[in-house]
């Protein structure tokens, strides 16, 4: 693997983790009965940008390296399902995250007063942030499982 690809992979992992952690924090803050939205707004902005960064860097690594060098090793190894189930699911479920995070980001920035005054809106914004975290965390663990299958 070239150093450019290695840095790409590291950036993909770090940005993905930042996005996951940011939306976990948004989720937790919104679940509080009374919560100021200053931090959730900043965190949703950071998380959304991170997911887009992770999308581009991960995509570059996936297209340039994974398919040619990693996928054949996994498919010919002991755990071919690590690619046929985990990678295939991970790469497609990931595509939902940037769009869901944009929607949460816009809601927090444009509807701050309404989220504060409407419990239902606040609760479901929290749930959607939680879902982004859960999906992101599952995708992160899937990445670990795929890496383990290569070894």
């Amino acid at each position: 693997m070239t150093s450019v690809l290695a840095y790409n992979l590291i950036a993909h992992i770090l940005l993905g983790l930042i996005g996951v952690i940011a939306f976990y924090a948004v989720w937790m803050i919104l679940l509080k009965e009374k919560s100021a939205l200053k931090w959730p707004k900043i965190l949703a902005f950071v998380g959304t940008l991170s997911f887009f960064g992770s999308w581009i860097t991960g995509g570059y690594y996936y297209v340039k390296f994974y398919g040619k060098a990693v996928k054949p090793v996994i498919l010919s190894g002991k755990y071919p399902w690590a690619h046929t189930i985990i990678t295939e699911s991970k790469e497609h479920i990931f595509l939902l995250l940037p769009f869901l995070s944009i929607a949460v980001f816009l809601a927090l920035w444009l509807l701050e007063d309404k989220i504060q005054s409407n419990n239902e809106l606040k609760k479901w914004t929290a749930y959607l942030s939680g879902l982004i975290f859960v999906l992101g965390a599952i995708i992160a663990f899937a990445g670990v499982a795929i890496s383990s299958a290569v070894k």
Partner: protein
Amino acid sequence: MKVVTSAFISAALVAVFVVGITIYGELYTPLKDWLKVNFSHHWVGKSVLSAILFLALFISFLFKTPNEKFPNFSLKLAFWLAIISSAAILFFYLYEVSLAH
């Protein structure tokens, strides 16, 4: 308000699109080949088309979405369709692998 409602509905519909193009692409090889030919890789094609679809839906819903007091319906729609779409993708690949054995 319309901006947020449009974003939630567009994200929800993109989730359905991702499921559709993923499953149909696996079952109908010419679609996956078309994505590869036009976007260098099927996943890049799905990524680009998802982004274009999100933007197109977002802009069109800005003009068509009723101005709700609170965008609770579109928010719940995005939440549930994201769960159903993720489960559909996972179960499709589980089913495909089970068929191969």
